[in-house]
């Protein structure tokens, strides 16, 4: 039964893969049409890489701060963090980008598109990360807290030496999934005119009508960013494993 299931899944997946492979290979490409846009696409890819890397780092900081707020014993901090997370997760990123860039940033006299884009993206991803972190910390058994208390650690020491090291390993897969999302979400920054990867592909397409020639490199370019993160996560997961 199990063998049969595995076999049929393999067949279906294989067939789907072949189908798309031949569709893509069978298409008559006009690579020459978008060749002039190649430098723009590369520049866009570089911009996406920069925006993603910066907001990725910032989102971890924001996420950790929000997690601390949500787990705090000080109730106003808890409510604030909770409210922030609910609002960010409950509204479309597009709206947040528009409000952030056209309403909030001008009020604060921030004019740097890159910085504002990074900030908005990090604020968005941070809310999701904080939920992942919170769940990871919550998944550590109560007995570990007991043990930490029994040997005389303070609450902060228990977090630092016992809880967080174990939680990090548990949240790695979900965190890297969120990182991949963030990289793809950065494509929405075209609405504020940031010349990132997707915007460049849209422009190339708009001027040449070479749809696949514009968007296939886009897919490959994003994979080139997300796959290494995936591999790094697996490697880290393996390296930090302590169970059998």
């Amino acid at each position, binding site marked *: 039964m199990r063998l049969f299931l595995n076999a049929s899944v393999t067949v279906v997946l294989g067939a789907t893969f072949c189908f798309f492979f031949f569709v893509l290979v069978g298409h008559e490409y006009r690579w020459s049409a978008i060749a002039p846009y190649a430098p723009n696409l590369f520049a866009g890819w570089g911009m996406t890489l920069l925006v993603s890397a910066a907001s990725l780092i910032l989102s971890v900081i924001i996420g950790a701060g929000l997690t601390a707020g949500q787990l705090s014993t000080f109730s106003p901090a808890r409510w604030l963090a909770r409210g922030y997370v609910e609002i960010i997760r409950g509204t479309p990123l597009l709206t947040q980008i528009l409000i952030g860039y056209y309403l909030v940033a001008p009020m604060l006299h921030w004019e740097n598109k890159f910085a504002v884009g990074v900030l908005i993206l990090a604020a968005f991803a941070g809310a999701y990360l904080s939920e992942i972190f919170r769940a990871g910390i919550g998944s550590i058994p109560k*007995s*570990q807290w*007991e*043990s930490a*208390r*029994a*040997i*005389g*650690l*303070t609450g902060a*020491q228990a977090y630092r*030496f*016992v809880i967080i*090291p*174990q939680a990090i*390993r548990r949240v790695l897969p979900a965190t890297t999934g969120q990182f991949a999302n963030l990289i793809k979400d950065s494509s929405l920054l075209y609405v504020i005119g940031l010349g990132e990867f997707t915007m460049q592909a849209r422009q190339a397409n708009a001027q040449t009508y070479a749809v696949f020639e514009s968007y296939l490199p886009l897919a490959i370019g994003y994979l080139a960013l997300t796959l290494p993160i995936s591999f790094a996560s697996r490697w880290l997961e393996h390296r*930090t494993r*302590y*169970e*059998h």
Partner: protein
Amino acid sequence: MNIELTDLTRRYGEAHALRSVSYRVPEGVRVLVLIGPSGGGKSTLLRMLGGLDVPDAGEIRFDATLLSRGDDPLRSHRRQNGFLFQAFNLFPHLTALENVTLPLTEVHDKNPVEAREIAMACLERFRLGAHHQKRPAEMSGGQQQRVALARALAHQPRLLILDEPTSALDPEMTAEVLEVIEGLCRDGQEIILSTHEMGFARAVADEIVFLADGEIVETGSPEKIFDAPDSEVVRQFLGRVMRY
């Protein structure tokens, strides 16, 4: 050990875990053993003696000094003593050695070299020297419990509290852990423990406390409790557990 309990009460919701327990450990007692049916209040009492839980009412005095309910005094109380859990509760992400050195470096202000020496000496004392680089998942239950013992003992606690130290172990491992505890008793370590191993209780105890239904039913020397208990409840319990 100079310990006095006065009207100690602990409730969990409606249920009484301890009902107004008063008791003074007789002079000269070094090893105190709690026995009695499961759910009788043994763990609750040990947790309060270890500063892991606070009573709803009543007092605990160590050397005539009241054990306060504040976070800081309770933490310093926990730091002076050692506590061993039924389920070992080692830190799974740390090696045997790191499990023992963590409280030494972070709580007891030892430098890493000193901590390592002390920890290795403790591990070797329990015949674990060869296993010091193993994580808990790579060790047997008996080995894990011996590492936990090393962790609880490394800072030379005034009082060692053991909550059913062998209840999660198979008979062979039970024997290896009991042997180690018996050695500690011989060496003059002050110990309070709860157990279902009646033969062991009789062998090591200076004084036995029989707890049932949140109350102390009977106390006395092992000879008295096992050979001629006053209480019918104790007689019936011992009759049941010693039958096979």
